[in-house]
């Protein structure tokens, strides 16, 4: 999945859009066939941008916690803010922006994990565990990183919300719109898998 910042934006050349060209015809930008009036940002846009700016760093860090890869996190955060703007009218109370936006962000991150980027990381886990590569296993942080990367997307999300954000189970359940029991079971399963991965690595000659 190439990065937003190194790939075409989705809908780049959808049929209902114009291609605007300069005299020498380089594509400058794509505009809606029925575009918006040129105007200063509306009040609602300004409110959105204020909140987006205020929460941008924390949102990016949460995306990093879930995805780890900086470029992926950058893409996911941008996509989440686009989604948030599309759904802006559904946010009744601006003071609830953070949990409202977090749900959009974690869903975006989860979808990116599902899209297939995990394959390469999974292989590295298997290599580290099965070959007993002393260089890889001497790096405790890498081992844990690989073990986390091998978790299913839903479990990576709850692990990040629990151990990075330090959110209580009820709050995670609310963010993800799932029952607290499901959060408990995902955490339980995730810890079990992490134990198994780390134990397997330790048992193959780790220096620790």
């Amino acid at each position: 999945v190439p990065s937003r910042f190194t790939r075409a934006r989705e809908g780049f050349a959808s049929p209902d859009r114009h291609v605007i060209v300069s005299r020498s015809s380089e594509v400058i930008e794509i505009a809606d066939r029925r575009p918006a009036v040129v105007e200063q940002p509306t009040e609602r846009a300004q409110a959105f941008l204020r909140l987006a700016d205020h929460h941008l760093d924390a949102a990016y860090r949460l995306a990093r916690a879930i995805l780890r890869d900086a470029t992926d996190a950058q893409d996911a955060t941008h996509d989440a803010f686009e989604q948030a703007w599309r759904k802006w009218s559904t946010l009744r109370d601006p003071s609830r922006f953070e949990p409202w936006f977090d749900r959009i962000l974690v869903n975006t991150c989860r979808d990116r994990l599902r899209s297939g980027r995990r394959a390469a990381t999974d292989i590295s886990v298997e290599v580290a565990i099965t070959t007993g590569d002393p260089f890889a296993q001497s790096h405790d942080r890498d081992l844990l990183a690989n073990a986390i990367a091998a978790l299913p997307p839903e479990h990576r999300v709850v692990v990040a919300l629990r151990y990075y954000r330090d959110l209580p189970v009820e709050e995670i359940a609310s963010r993800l719109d799932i029952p607290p029991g499901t959060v408990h079971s995902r955490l339980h399963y995730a810890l079990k898998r992490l134990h198994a991965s780390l134990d397997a690595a330790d048992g193959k000659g780790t220096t620790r």
Partner: protein
Amino acid sequence: MTDHELEQRLRSWYRAEIPGDETAPAALRSSIPAIPVTVPSAGRRGGTRGRGFTLLAAAALVALLAGTAIVGARLLDPLPGPSATAATWTATGSMPNSHVNHTATLLPDGRVLMVGAYDSDGAPASAELYDPSTGSWKATGDMTRGRAEHTATLLLDGRVLVAGGGDSGTARTNTAELYDPSTGSWTATGDMTEARSGHTATLLPDGRVLVAGAGGDNGVASATAELYDPRTGTWTATANMMERHSYHTSTLLPDGTVLVAGGGESIAPSCTSRAPGRGPPPRR
């Protein structure tokens, strides 16, 4: 290891992996303000769709009007429908210098980068930025050399690729450079495989840039084309066009192919042909 120890290890790992003061990359931060402009929002009162030109269109119009900067903008409100016939033109700040055979490129933050031109002494290396919020122009960093009849292409990472052009009526260059809006500075990148002016540059869906054709010496245009890869900063020749094209148009179509049309080997318009696009079809 107990569950509690593993939980502590996880918390420590996250703290080390993602420092609390880690900030969002500048490219991400600068991309956010464009969202309300470019992304439709559900529930917008009455909707502003269907009424007039976008800021983007306005920027393109700036590009089209050499010498006099006019932004097609604020329309009568409310308009009865999507017709642009009720659009009006409003004068905006004049450019510091007159321009001809320049380029104008909309930046992700809404400003417009104006590059190159011919003047009485050749082509200056200066570049200017138009700020639509104030209607004013200001100088930004100079290019590494003067250019006119070049191309300027916004890359997916927010930088602008400026390629080719000349500094007089006959001297054309194969050099290219990148403008970084966050610093206002220019950096040389790889040279094209041949010197070009009067060519076109088209951003492909995969982020590469297709450069095609060129005006040639003795009135003979070029049929060659090449691809710029922003990840490596290098150019690679690709298949020649069926005909020679200069001062033509090149347009990315919805299916990912690139339409090259018009232009000619000399002054007269000659031909229209369709070249296969490079890169995957756009994602739906």
